[in-house]
């Protein structure tokens, strides 16, 4: 049924790994996802094909948060949209609770959508400016005909309370009368109202101020702990992803570079791009600028329309060799739940720079891709 995952003989990354680990509750499994955009030239003719997501596979287990980090053009937002089938991906499988969403008929999607919700980046465009807060949060309940009108109202009020908004004060307001943080809380309440299992968060705090960001991130954490939610958390900020995630996946130009438990990724990155991302995080603690010679990243990001042959990162990688141009590196499991797509992964190169004290490498937690 599934095509064999192209890997080196050592440790294939397939469903077998997760099946082998008892008690693992595989919530979402994405396999070889490909999403393309067709670009129109003048006159509407086909100008070129942009492969925004290129053969991406990963898993999310129940109760865990997978952080996906990438810069502009990495395809992370497109990935999120493909998972919720808006629009469906060109190739690949999205298996949610055992059902492949890509092949699912439209009508059957309705029952799936209850459990899979999304929070968008800009709360002011993800909430209808003409609707009141209560109506916005109640909308999914009406769509699924849940409860009577009174029951719905009670549920909406309970949720507004849960996200820290007083229903009496905020229920009748319109989004434009809210601040960015408050509006995002409304969006979160709406995502929660049907009691989903997995929430896709597409840069949910990027457009907020620092203090508000922290407040909303804390809210995500609180909800995760109280409701047992799983998140697919997309961000461009590595530090933010560290706070909320159990595992992290790093994307570059449509492909996954590295996946692993969060502490391991931060203390011992295996992919040069991950190291570069870590190094560019400015730190408030002096001494300020650290320039790790081995991780200097050069040049401009290549155009996603015409990605480099072989490893897409090779044009900016200080360790690039001939093999990197010739062969596409596959995502390989290296034990302890770590996967990396690199011909020459870093190892033991995690310097104790002033801001990154090496943490003990975490043993693969129960439920992560086993070894």
């Amino acid at each position, binding site marked *: 049924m599934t095509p064999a995952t192209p890997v080196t003989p050592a440790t294939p990354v397939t469903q077998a790994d997760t099946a082998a680990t008892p008690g693992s509750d595989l919530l979402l499994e994405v396999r070889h996802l490909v999403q393309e955009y067709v670009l129109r030239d003048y006159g509407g003719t086909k100008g070129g094909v942009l492969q925004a997501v290129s053969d991406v596979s990963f898993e999310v287990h129940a109760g865990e948060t997978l952080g996906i980090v990438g810069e502009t053009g990495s395809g992370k937002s497109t990935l999120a949209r493909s998972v919720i089938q*808006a629009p469906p991906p060109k190739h690949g499988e999205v298996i949610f609770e055992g059902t492949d969403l890509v092949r699912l008929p439209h009508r059957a999607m309705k029952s799936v*959508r209850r459990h899979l*919700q999304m929070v968008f980046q800009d709360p002011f465009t993800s909430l*209808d400016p003409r609707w009141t807060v209560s109506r916005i949060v109640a909308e999914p309940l*009406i*769509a699924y005909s849940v409860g009577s009108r009174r029951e719905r109202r009670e549920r909406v009020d309970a949720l507004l309370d849960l996200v820290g908004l007083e229903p009496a004060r905020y229920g009748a307001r319109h989004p434009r009368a809210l601040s960015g943080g408050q509006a995002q809380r409304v969006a979160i309440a709406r995502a929660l109202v049907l009691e989903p299992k997995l929430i896709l968060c597409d840069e949910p705090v990027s457009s907020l101020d620092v203090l508000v960001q922290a407040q909303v991130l804390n809210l995500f954490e609180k909800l995760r702990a109280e409701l047992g939610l799983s998140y697919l958390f997309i961000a461009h900020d590595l530090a933010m992803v560290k706070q909320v995630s159990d595992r992290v996946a790093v994307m570059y130009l449509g492909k996954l570079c590295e996946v692993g438990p969060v502490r391991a990724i931060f203390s011992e990155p295996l992919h040069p791009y991950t190291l570069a991302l870590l190094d560019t995080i400015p730190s408030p603690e002096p001494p300020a600028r650290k320039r790790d010679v081995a991780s200097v990243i050069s040049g401009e990001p290549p155009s996603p329309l015409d990605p480099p042959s072989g490893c897409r990162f090779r044009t900016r990688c200080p360790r690039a060799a001939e093999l990197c141009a010739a062969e596409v590196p596959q995502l390989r499991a290296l034990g302890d739940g770590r996967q990396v797509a690199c011909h020459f992964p870093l190892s033991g190169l995690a310097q104790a720079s002033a801001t990154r004290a090496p943490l003990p490498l975490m043993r693969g937690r129960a439920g992560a891709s086993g070894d």
Partner: protein
Amino acid sequence: MAVPVAEVLPPALPSGDLAAVGRLSGARRLLRSLEIAAPAAVLLVLLFSCFIWPIVYPVPKPTGGSILGAGLPMWSPGHIFGTDTVGNDIMSRILYGGRVSFEVAAAVQVIGLVVGGLLGMVAGYAGRAVEAVLMRTLDVFIAFPSLVLVLAIVDSLGQSEVNVIWALSAFSIPAFARVARAATLQVRDQPFVVAARLSSVKTWRILAGHIAPNLLPQLLTFSLLGAGVTIILEGALDFLGYGIPDPAASWGKMIASGQAMLSVSPGLVIVPSIFLFVTVVALNMLGDGLRAVWGVR
């Protein structure tokens, strides 16, 4: 000496500090509301005069005048604007004619907004085949020069106020459909619509609850501007003899029939022209003012 754009004009005022601040000073604000209040007041006065005033106050009849009283000049006792060539009081013809003009304009706009708006919204939301079929069908109507199309319809249906309305609607429906479709395309991909689809909200609910309310400002301002055009088109029809049948009046008709007597009694043409002008300008100003307030492009 030209100063580079990048130095003088910040690309866009940033959100937060400055966006929270309205850039209008006190005087400007008054003007803005005057832009809306003034034309609205003018239109209200006109509507009142045409529809309500004749019911309340005994105004001479617009038709059936006697030849004996024909050709009276302006400011004659009992006839403020004088009488026309067959003895009808011009003032009352203005008022009753105004009724016709407004009725036709309102009816055409409402039909256009409802039918055209609906078609455009469905076409824009559904996309692909549905959109192609609907829009190409409407394109057929747009392809005709408006006046030719309208003339043809009236000619085949016969002259009457109702038929004039149908004929003008054939022109307004495609226009509204285009505006509605373009606006729908903008709204359709907004995250809040995507979010609604993600919650499996039924399509008709999305259209009615999310799309339509966000289309209304644009469609309403468009209809105000269109009303002016409609009145003028109706006048053109009368001018060509395809409009409302005798002896009913409309402003366009009065202008049309009065032009023969232009040298003798210019008032026959000038008075309705002034009313027509004021009405169309007021409608346009109101449309512009509302457009500025609602931020519609």
